[in-house]
């Protein structure tokens, strides 16, 4: 995140495809953060903005936090914290999206 304007850093990750002129990268990121939080909450994990230089911060509600550069990093850290990878084939993962507003 730029320390001046707060806009997210340009990422090289495939899913962070350059925003169009009409889109608002900050708003897009906040939306993604919100959705990620809903998913991670089911596993007892938290997800926040990563601050300057990082994409996201993941935490385990017991004080441990890690900064990640992209979604792949997020899933890897989640796996490190939980001892096994978060699996979208689990009902706990895909069921969580039914509570979206």
């Amino acid at each position, binding site marked *: 995140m730029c320390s001046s304007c707060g806009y997210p850093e340009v990422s*090289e990750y*495939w*899913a962070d*495809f*350059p*925003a*169009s002129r009409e*889109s608002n990268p900050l708003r*897009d990121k906040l*939306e*993604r953060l919100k*959705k*990620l939080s809903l*998913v991670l909450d089911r596993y007892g994990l938290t997800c926040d903005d990563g601050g300057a230089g990082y994409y996201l911060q993941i935490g385990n509600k017991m004080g441990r936090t890690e900064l990640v550069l992209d*979604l*792949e990093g997020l*899933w*890897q850290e989640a*796996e490190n914290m939980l001892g096994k*990878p*978060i*699996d*979208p*084939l689990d*009902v706990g*993962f*895909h069921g*969580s*999206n*039914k509570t979206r507003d």
Partner: protein
Amino acid sequence: MVVTKLGINSLDNRIKITIVSGYLGAGKTTYLQHFMNHQVCKNTVLLVNEFAQDGVDDILLSGQLPVINISDGCICCTKKMEFLEYLRSLCNRKTSKKLGTSEVITHLVVETSGVSDPASIYDGVVKDLSLSKHILIEKIIVLVDSTSDLSELKEEPLINNQIISADELILSKVDLISKKKGRVLFNFLRLANKSAMIFSSVKGEKKLLRSKDKQSVIYRQSLGPEEKKQLDKIFALKIKLKQDTNWNDLVIWLSALLHCHGKDIMRVKGLVMSPNGPIFIQGIKNHIQKLQLLPEEYALKQKYLLLIGRNIDKDSIKASASFVN
């Protein structure tokens, strides 16, 4: 509404790579010689990777195409750095000057060594941040020697990996086998790779093979229980997406799926709607190539995700996709 004939990669300015792979002696060189002699290949370079030491180091002009040689090792491992350096020079357009042409190179055909895994080559390009912006791996063609024993094709893991990751499978040298063997091989390939186009070839000239599903079903009945089990583990699943599928939902789901199951998902292909317009997703295992926008008419087409892999239950993927749909 008139839909133009713009190809799926027509707005993509990256250098397009076609990988031509296949086990030792499968007929890659014969296929490429035929290809070069019969196709107009503008702005195309051929790169030949030879495992053996005695490759030619010079740049040769063969037919219409300049040919580069990397020998004494495979570009998926020992010669990977050299290969990536060559790709970088291609992107820098220095190679055009070296080849004495002012034409910009837009296509690269890579003939791999007989023992390389196309997925590893793919890996090297996609993971490299600067290369992934300038290079698109467009197609993987795998030649299969029809004169091999079927047991060899089934048991050799490298051959299996090549077959499963192919976009096009070519059964070579079919003039040397019986029609019956041809049918058996076709059915085996079809069961092993449910989405590839399958061709036969004679001296490098290819012909598309079609077969009714019934034939594959009958073939499958003839297999032993172990074999049936192995082949049944392979799946190809096309998930139709709603027009208003949320991009973030898709990205979250797909990235988590590839992180958890990446080693079992051989290919990902999809036509999806992003906030910027229609895009084509293409990847092998957990490496998705950098995305590019498609021509606007693709916004009207049915959106989908195609997952090809093994050892994962199709129904649980379908259920899981409710996250996105």
